[in-house]
């Protein structure tokens, strides 16, 4: 595949003009995936706050606490990398997406600030900020769905597009809710887990419908994408992906149904399966788009900044990303599995 690209573009494979955008695309994909997976359960739990009884809301917010500031950086990092490495696609992508982007920017702003304000506000002023966090999360999730839909079908004002956008918006909201619910199931026992099971079972159907709709519309509304998937080896991959997706959805559904009866046992299975679904769908979309940033119009090489600028950014990224990686491993390592209460330090009166 690299060879055919090299031939097509007329670069040498060692030309930085050729490989640098590829490297950055890979990094960007990693950041987007990490954002969807790690910020995803955060958004999901935020959306579920609206359904949760008042008594459990504080507990749900507290559960999110340890990862909140790490989660918030993914979008920031992704946006920054994108604008600096692919400046010539930035405007073309952003301009038609003003509405969903505004929704997303405000959603992210509201949820981030609300979370921190709740943490620092006196108890009697906390409940409006919990509501703010929930509303911000729903806005963010819907905006992600609208962005996805508009990237796939373009942003024409036709009725079909609007209906599709609304449908995908709801499906993505459900996907985040599923992620949040399965995470809660894994983290917390008791009545919160039982509620989470019910939420998860309701969400999983919408997610499955959304996955099917995204794939079909992406393939049918765009000949290039259809050809890419239906010719030769990818056809086998299509079959494999569908089998895996089917297994994921079924196993999530079956585990959740069983857990209704035996909710005392903890399990990470539905959460990991939901992660797998996210990764597969994102990878599928990335493969369909590659090497385009705007479908059939701007490739990553058209959009890239000059080699000198990219080299500078790469140097910065080589310093920053390992730090990010180590920091995140340290932060996230205890994210899986049930929650443990913090241990008070042993009392030692002679130490400061």
């Amino acid at each position: 595949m690299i060879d055919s690209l090299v031939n097509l573009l007329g670069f040498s494979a060692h030309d930085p003009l050729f490989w640098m955008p590829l490297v950055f695309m890979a990094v960007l994909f990693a950041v987007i995936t990490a954002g969807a997976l790690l910020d995803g359960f955060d958004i999901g739990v935020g959306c579920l706050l609206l359904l949760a009884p008042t008594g459990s809301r504080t507990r749900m917010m507290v559960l999110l606490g340890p990862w909140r500031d790490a989660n918030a950086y993914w979008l920031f990092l992704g946006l920054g990398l994108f604008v600096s490495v692919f400046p010539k696609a930035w405007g073309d992508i952003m301009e038609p997406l003003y509405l969903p982007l505004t929704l997303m920017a405000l959603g992210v702003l509201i949820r981030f600030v609300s979370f921190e304000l709740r943490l620092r506000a006196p108890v009697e002023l906390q409940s409006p900020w919990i509501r703010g966090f929930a509303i911000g999360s729903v806005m963010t999730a819907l905006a992600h769905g609208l962005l996805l839909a508009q990237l796939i079908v373009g942003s024409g004002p036709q009725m079909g597009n609007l209906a599709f956008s609304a449908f995908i918006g709801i499906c993505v909201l459900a996907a985040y809710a599923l992620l949040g619910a399965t995470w809660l199931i894994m983290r917390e026992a008791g009545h919160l887990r039982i509620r989470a099971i019910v939420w998860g079972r309701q969400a999983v159907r919408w997610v499955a419908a959304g996955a099917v709709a995204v794939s079909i519309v992406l393939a049918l509304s765009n000949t290039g994408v259809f050809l890419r998937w239906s010719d030769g080896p990818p056809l086998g991959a299509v079959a494999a992906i569908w089998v895996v997706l089917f297994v994921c959805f079924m196993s999530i559904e079956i585990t959740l149904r069983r857990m209704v009866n035996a909710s005392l046992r903890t399990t990470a299975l539905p959460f990991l399966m939901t992660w797998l679904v996210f990764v597969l769908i994102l990878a599928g979309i990335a493969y369909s788009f590659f090497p385009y940033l705007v479908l059939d119009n701007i490739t990553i090489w058209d959009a890239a900044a000059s080699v000198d600028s990219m080299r500078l950014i790469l140097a910065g990224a080589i310093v920053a990303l390992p730090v990010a990686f180590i920091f995140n491993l340290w932060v996230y390592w205890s994210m899986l599995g049930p929650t443990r209460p913090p241990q008070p330090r042993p009392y030692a009166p002679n130490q400061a």
Partner: protein
Amino acid sequence: MTNASLWLTQIHFLVSLGFLTLFLLIELGLSWTLLFFKLGAHFTKGPGWIAAYRFWVRVFALASVLAFAASIPVLIQIGSLWPGLMDRIGNIAGPLIAAAILTTFIFKSCFLGAMLFGQRQLSDRVHTLVVAMVAVGVTLASLCMVILQSWMQTPTGSVLINGEYLVMNWADIAGNPSMPWLAALLGSGAALTAAFLLLGVSARQSMRHPLSEGELLSFRTGQHLALGAGLVLTLALVGYGQDMAQHQPAKAAATMGYWKTGAATDFPLVGWPDAARQETRYALRLPGAAASWLGQDTQGQSLGLDRYAGMHAPVSATFWSFRIAWAASLFMVLMAIASYLRLRRHDGDPAHLSRTSRRLLSASMFTGWVLGAAILCHVLLGLSPWAVNNTVTLAEVSATQPAALLSAGLLVHALVYLIFVGAFYQLLRHISHYGVIPVARRRGRA
């Protein structure tokens, strides 16, 4: 692209960037103040330093949260409001934005958490070092943004080929003529904002109860910081004006409300720039002070707005934002001097001020924001109709969103920003009345 939607786009962006700037000023000013408190605790062992640190670190944490969150709408709006901008300046803006973001990312993830939540786990020395690193990180990230903005004011070290800027020399880009002045304005503005926050909060506390050691220290620090930063700011404003006269004569002419090229003598202190009659009416003028504030042509005549065929900034906005900035800074300098002189013999205890002056101090808590907003307006609006001075216009890079959509977006943004500014104030008032609540957070536990 109609004129109205271009204006709306500009205001939309200005509002988002303004919200970011307000909290960046507090974050930047307080980060160094906190380091000062930590060092004070280190060297004098007085109990007040730690109390002052404990109180103001909460305000700092909240401001840094708001500044960070505010940067996401700004980042997105660079694309959605100015879609053509990055096509043209991407090679220069890209690395600078990346540097700012990676710096923020590294310094926040490594040090901010340790500073806010790890004081018990770290030794005192290491914690002071962490506080210093946080201050350095905020400063570096803001410096990147200052370089980008000042380069757009006075583009050097780069060349425009086929509608796209290419880098010639990074040192010239970073050291463009307006960079030192904008950096000085941001730095001293941040210090002054933080100083008046310290003064205002402590003055308000002194009306409710006698000040504790830590609150007294905050007040004294605020006094000295206000004196020093006020001096630097005044000099920086003068330097910024002279630099503008030399490198951006159109902006200088708009700032002075100077319409017709000729031998300028009088400096209009206040007045009403009337675009229809091409003159500044009802002006109160300072005789013989104008020449160095205006650009000169080869015959030694001062350049007026008639030389620019309409390609100059909106005169009233530029004229007034500059004067508001001056008024705010002079007000703050006078307040600082007056309170210093009054309390020189009383060990800087605001209890010796009259109730009215304390109320005045507490009411001018956010004068730094007025100053910051005015300077930002002058810097950004004074550059229009250019996005990059004399080469790239705003109209050619601007989005073609319908005006209704823009107004709705602007309205919603403004509303959300207002709510958060209100919440910040509410929380500040709450902690200044009842003291701080410790916030604990453990990574990986819940």
